[in-house]
């Protein structure tokens, strides 16, 4: 284990480190984000870019998509949510186990974007709680990476349930 090696190297064999349990759990949780990509629309193209080799989401421990909501930590909602798909989205969210976080990827999921009409949901936060909003239509990969780093910060700082 990396941490133990560092601690032994710096302080010697019989040393130990004290930390808050919350901080330790947060630290481990934030680097093993298993995502469930709920990809519907244009933003999916940028999600593909972010998760493949060029932008390499793996650096943040967040590359591995789990295609079952039961195994995922982060629901990443990518693309416009219409009223027809809305019940499916909330069902997927309910199936995820705690602790869970939600990223709204793209302006359609944040506010509805420029689709302000009879068919679209005006922001997924009217359906499920959202942790990080990533604006942009679609957001550039750099913006997405910043959003994910902000989520990691949030996970580190929050009160951990275990």
């Amino acid at each position, binding site marked *: 284990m990396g941490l133990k090696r560092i601690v032994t190297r710096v302080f010697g064999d019989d040393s130990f480190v004290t930390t808050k349990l919350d901080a330790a759990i947060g630290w481990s949780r934030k680097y093993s984000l298993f995502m469930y990509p709920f990809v519907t629309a244009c933003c999916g193209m940028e999600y593909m870019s972010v998760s493949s080799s060029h932008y390499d989401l793996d650096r943040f421990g967040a590359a591995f998509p789990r295609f079952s909501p039961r195994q995922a930590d982060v629901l990443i909602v990518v693309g416009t949510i219409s*009223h*027809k798909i*809305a*019940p499916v989205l*909330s069902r997927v969210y309910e199936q995820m186990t705690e602790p869970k976080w939600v990223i709204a990827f793209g302006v359609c999921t944040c506010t509805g974007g420029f689709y*302000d*009409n*009879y*068919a679209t*949901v*005006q922001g997924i936060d*009217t*359906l499920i709680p959202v942790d990080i909003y990533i604006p942009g239509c679609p957001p550039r990969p750099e913006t997405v990476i910043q959003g994910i780093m902000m989520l990691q910060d949030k996970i580190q700082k929050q009160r951990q349930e275990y």
Partner: protein
Amino acid sequence: MGRATEILRARFADCFLDAHEQHGDETVVLRPAGIAAVAAFLRSDAELLFNVLMDVTAVDYPGRTPRFEVVYHFYSLPRRARLRIKLPVPEDQPEVDSLTPLWKSANWYEREVWDMFGIRFRGHPNLKRILMYEAFEGHPLRKDYPIKKRQPLIGPMN
């Protein structure tokens, strides 16, 4: 005048209403009752050979009688020719014959026109909504449907 217009005018004089060639698009306006016979003819005629039904849609003209216009786009692959046929459809009886027995492509297009405009297709095997959900009321592409009138399945109105 295009060849298809000439032939249709001569052969289907009883349901021929009008024709134009605006911007080079050959267009024929017919009485709705004749569409099934005309389409069957277009498909089988050895000279015209319109073997692809490219598109079926409708346009809403509020204030005009008849209010709706169903628009067909035919394409002839061997001749590389296009033909647009328009049918004026009244508001009180929005119904035309289905072309699904002739072309499989008509199936989904006609379902979409029913979904969006509320125009029924006589003889369609499965005329139900395609883009919207069953609980949706009204037909959104009609001009009198407000663009922001939401009917959510779950969640708040906006």
